[in-house]
């Protein structure tokens, strides 16, 4: 039985199932850091994605990677700000809420660790992402479910 996480964005709640078999190290990494909460933003280069910065000390290794995200994917990766600042890329956690999304940087697609899939509440959390695009973002909270 896969572990589950809860994602809260504004008033919307979603549940995601960890891909323990496909991404065991990444799932453990995320599980062990929960609960986390932080300022959320909408991507400006990747389409339908909402992300949250993680502590720079988070050690991420490539695992279960893709450059083709689909709605419901929950991913973790190193995000390079556009344009590249003096600082190195920082780890972020994000979810994809609709089609036409691809995590990208100035140089093109960025491979992400796909570690979970949203199983409940994708519509609700997507609606909240859409609303917040216009009105401004609130914190996102991710916890063990």
């Amino acid at each position, binding site marked *: 039985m896969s572990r589950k996480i809860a994602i809260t964005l504004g008033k919307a709640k979603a549940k995601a199932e960890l891909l323990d078999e496909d991404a065991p190290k990444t799932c453990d990494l995320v599980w062990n850091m929960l609960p986390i909460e932080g300022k959320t933003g909408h991507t400006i280069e990747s*389409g339908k994605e909402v992300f949250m910065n993680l502590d720079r000390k988070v050690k991420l290794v490539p695992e279960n990677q*893709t450059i*083709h995200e*689909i*709605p419901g994917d929950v991913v973790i990766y190193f995000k390079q700000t556009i344009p590249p600042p003096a600082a190195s890329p920082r780890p972020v956690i994000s979810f994809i809420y609709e*089609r*036409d*999304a*691809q995590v990208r940087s100035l140089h093109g697609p960025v491979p992400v660790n796909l570690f979970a899939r949203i199983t409940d509440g994708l519509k609700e959390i997507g609606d909240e992402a859409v609303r917040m695009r216009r009105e401004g973002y609130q914190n996102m909270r991710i916890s063990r479910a």
Partner: protein
Amino acid sequence: MGRKIKVSFPEERVSGLAELAEEDAPKTSQAIWNLLPLKANALHDIWSGHVVFLFLEPTRIIEYENVSRILDVCPGDLYYYYRAPHFFRGAPYGKVEASEIGIVYDRDTQPWGPRGAKGVNIFGTVTENLEGIARVCERMIWDGAKAVLLERT
């Protein structure tokens, strides 16, 4: 709710249903509907990932419609693509104009060719038995071409 079409691999005795994206791609949906029933040999794509495709013979030109901003597709997508002759290098594909229908059967797929990404019209989605269709498409990597039949329901 769009009209449905049946996607079959007759020799494999596998079929599924797809819904036309009539709200998003009305012209392409109608143009494809008008071609049915359509039987052709489908080949596994060699550039794009999890896609099998069939050529429309003779070539049909359908206008650019419902193309993803990032030229991306999702599992279950049915798409149409047209290319002019000599757009990309190589034989046999490059020299002739061609129009094709693609069936996307799994993720990690982006329509691609020798010249780069392809801007495809997404005109439908497989809504029933994508898994069965996917198993047949996977076998095509080893078995080669298989007949596919698209029909109105």
